[in-house]
């Protein structure tokens, strides 16, 4: 489709880009993070309203650089959900001052545009560029608390690992270009089907690309940045990093590996299966002894990525649906949990799990919400996290990946140790302080949305499964 015809399908991204610039300029005059945040939220809602709602693929945009299909639209909507929640909890995050709020939102909105582009890219170079854009913005956001040493350290670690892995990915893409003479994914697919390819070279390049994406999804062994970055980054950014780029990473994995390179499925599936088992097991084991809740949630998010990867390894329609369902659930429960962490931090100035002692007595509603999020992450029915796991395991059993299913359930038991540890401190131990801070409304709103979300999609998943079913590739 030509550029002018494509614009019509590109409105959501344009609205966000416009809002990003507007908020940057407005930030010079309005030094108030709540007002600027509301502006961003308005743009996000406007953007959702302008989604093309193409439940069937309507074809390529911008000379085959982007594709407009329902699969990318699903992930664009997830992106906007993540962004909306992150902005809400950012408004309630105390260490973020009003002075720099304009820049902060500008970066977040730009990241949203980059993520939406990444979800819709149909060309390896386009994927690379948009991923690099997400990464660069994430580095800055991680370091956003300029006077906080651990924030800067977190960003540096993130940056070093990030450049390495994107370099590896670019190297893989160069192999693909050498093999096919193009970076256009549709063209590669048809070439792969019609004429075949040197299997070894293609496998090597796929593994390199997988490595690059593993960094985004925080899969082992590309997870080393996670604990320090999650701990050091401003908490809303930690929530963002744990949800947004990860969801996009999975979207791209599915697009490249299960759509375009599906004929080579047997060549890479064993490696990815091993990565999945190692990721969830190591993530869970490392999480058990953490004392900082952000670090613990960091390791937990590694383990969660391992479960999501099960659906990807299986690769069937049910597997992909499981991945997509799990991602909705994961986004809600993870951002919800980080939202609670922010509110606790506002009053006790600590992220130490032991400081959560007696939270149920001090702040019963907040403790209840965090408990629900943690139980959902642990996969206790009837919450959304359970149904996500259920679908992932169902996909594995259906396709006879028994090892994966067994590893998955053993890990769900292992994970209970550290999720319940937090609950234990909140409910079983006595409070140490009686400090009570007023809770900002936007952050409360984000937590309530997430809470209702995981209850509704856990108890009544029917419309969500339909939505996902209509959004498959």
């Amino acid at each position, binding site marked *: 489709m030509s550029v002018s015809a494509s614009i019509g399908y590109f409105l959501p991204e344009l609205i966000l880009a416009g809002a990003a610039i507007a908020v940057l300029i407005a930030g010079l005059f309005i030094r108030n993070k709540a007002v600027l945040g509301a502006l961003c939220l308005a743009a996000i809602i406007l953007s959702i309203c302008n989604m093309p709602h193409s439940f069937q693929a309507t074809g390529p945009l911008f000379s085959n650089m982007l594709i407009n299909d329902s699969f990318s639209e699903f992930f664009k909507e997830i992106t906007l959900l993540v962004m909306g929640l992150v902005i809400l909890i950012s408004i309630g995050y105390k260490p973020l001052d009003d002075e720099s709020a304009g820049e902060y939102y500008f970066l977040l909105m730009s990241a949203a545009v980059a993520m939406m582009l990444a979800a819709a890219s149909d060309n390896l170079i386009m994927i690379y560029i948009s991923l690099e854009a997400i990464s660069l913005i994430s580095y800055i956001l991680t370091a956003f608390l300029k006077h906080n040493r651990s924030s800067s350290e977190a960003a540096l670690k993130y940056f070093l690992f990030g450049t390495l892995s994107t370099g590896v990915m670019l190297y893989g893409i160069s192999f693909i270009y050498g093999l096919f003479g193009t970076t256009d994914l549709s063209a590669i697919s048809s070439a792969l089907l019609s004429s075949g390819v040197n299997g070894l070279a293609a496998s090597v390049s796929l593994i390199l690309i997988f490595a690059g994406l593993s960094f985004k999804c925080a899969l082992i062994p590309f997870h080393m940045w996670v604990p320090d970055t999650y701990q050091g980054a401003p908490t809303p950014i930690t929530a963002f990093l744990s949800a947004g780029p990860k969801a996009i990473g999975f979207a791209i994995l599915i697009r490249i590996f299960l759509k375009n390179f599906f004929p080579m499925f047997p060549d890479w599936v064993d490696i990815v299966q091993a990565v999945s088992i190692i990721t969830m097991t190591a993530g869970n084991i490392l999480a058990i002894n953490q004392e900082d809740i952000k670090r613990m949630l960091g390791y937990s998010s590694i383990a969660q990525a391992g479960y999501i990867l099960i659906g990807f390894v299986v690769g069937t329609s049910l597997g992909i649906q499981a991945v997509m369902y799990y991602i909705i659930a994961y986004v809600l429960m993870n951002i919800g949990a980080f939202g609670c962490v922010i509110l606790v931090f506002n009053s006790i100035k600590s992220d130490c799990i032991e400081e959560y002692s007696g939270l149920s007595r001090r702040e019963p509603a907040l403790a209840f919400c965090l408990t629900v999020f943690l139980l959902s992450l642990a996969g206790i029915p009837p919450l959304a996290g*359970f149904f996500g796991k259920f679908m992932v395991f169902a996909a594995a059993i259906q396709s006879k990946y028994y090892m994966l299913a067994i590893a998955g359930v053993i890990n769900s*038991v292992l994970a*209970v140790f550290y999720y319940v540890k937090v609950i234990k401190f909140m409910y079983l131990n006595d409070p140490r302080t009686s400090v009570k801070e007023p809770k900002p409304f936007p952050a409360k709103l984000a937590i309530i949305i997430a809470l209702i979300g995981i209850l509704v999609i856990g108890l009544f998943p029917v419309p969500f499964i339909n939505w996902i079913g209509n959004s498959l590739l």
Partner: protein
Amino acid sequence: MPFPLLTAITFMPLLAGIIILLVPKNRTGLIKGIATAATGIVLVLSILMLTGFDYNSSAMQFSENLSWIPQVNINYHLGVDGISIGLIFLTALLGFLACVGSYGIKERQKEYYFLYLLLNTGMLGTFLALDLFLFYVFWEVVLVPMYFLIGIWGGPRKEYAAIKFFIYTLAGSVFMLLSILALYFASQPHTFNMLELASGNCGVFAKGFQIIVFAGFYLGFAIKVPVFPFHTWLPDAHVEAPTPISVLLAGVLLKMGGYGFFRISYPILKDAAIYFALPFAILGLINIVYGAFVAMAQTDFKKMVAYSSVSHMGFVMLGLASMTITGFNGALLQMFNHGIITGGLFLLVGVLYDRAHTRDIDKFGGLGAKMPVYAGVLTVFTLASLGLPGLSGFVSEFMSLMGGFISFRLITAISVLGIVITAGYFLYMIQRVLLGPLNNAWTGISDINKRELFTLVPLMAVVIAIGVYPLMILNYQSAAIAKLIQDIGGLLL
């Protein structure tokens, strides 16, 4: 559409729990009132269910079946038959009495009653669900409130006991989840409906497949029962849990495992059930004899009752292993009787602990003179538990053993020893607690009060009634049991 009786039974406690969340936490009288009323209504509804139940029919009654998640063929499917009806009544009765028994809890009452009611919904739902997915959801819903109830209101080692209970049961149930999924994908058309899977309309499963799936379910159920060697969570959880929660733990939660064998493992996986009959009998024997010996060694009153549960649940395993109508009837009745008797015993331990603040059997003595009513009630329950003819425990143990004798003579013969040992430790306990010279520390101890008596008298009435006229409950279950044995191909004896 008829009145959804089973939905009302299941969700009445949850509804009341949500109402309690809206009540200010200092209105404790109101909170107790709501909880008592809700569990009372459940009891009344379950009696309505008993009266409306046609016990000549082995089919599901009061069924409700609504589509829940049609994409994967999951239904909201409830129903009651002869196998579940007794356990539902048991749950409703103990749920109500333990709620009255909870009045002694003085701390964080709002949270307590909310969790207590949530637990009730989970237990009732587990016995009523006929869809494997729904069953699993209710099964897991039980875990969370139980964790809090032990962890917050428990004894000195409550944190350890609570997490141990949580991890053990979850570890078992996740394998059950895999078995549920395996059944779903093996059936044609794919279904989670227990009745369809058992009827053979969805294809017959190969024996090797059945054995693996059976093993998955077994882990889930055996940990709950608990079958040796998975029983180690039970004494910890029982000793630390507050009295009313011990009552539900022993009275109802253990039955969830046994019920799972009756409802899922045996009817759906018939070949595997026959294949595993001998191991079941041996495990039953170990439970009976080993549990009894360990109970004998206890000085903690509550721990002794806890291990006696392990021993008594062995009769359920033995009855199941026998594959006979008598054995099955005995096993099912044993679950009901054990719930009533052990529930009563835990209440009695609680009565003593509330006054003496110790459970060490050796520290008591001569209480029979100071607490005559208590002594009388304790004696009745103890005699029922050790299987005195004329009381309910005797009937079900006798039937289990009789069924077992048809299939496994030697194992049953050794199992009978368990009854002797049980008589030994219970009578020895009576001797040390009620008889002998009065320990001077307890001169000021008061007898059982009216509220405590109120929670015990109904249980005592059931114990005596079933002991004298067991048909009044056997009538409910015999048609369903006969059909089950016929379907499995067991012995019609």
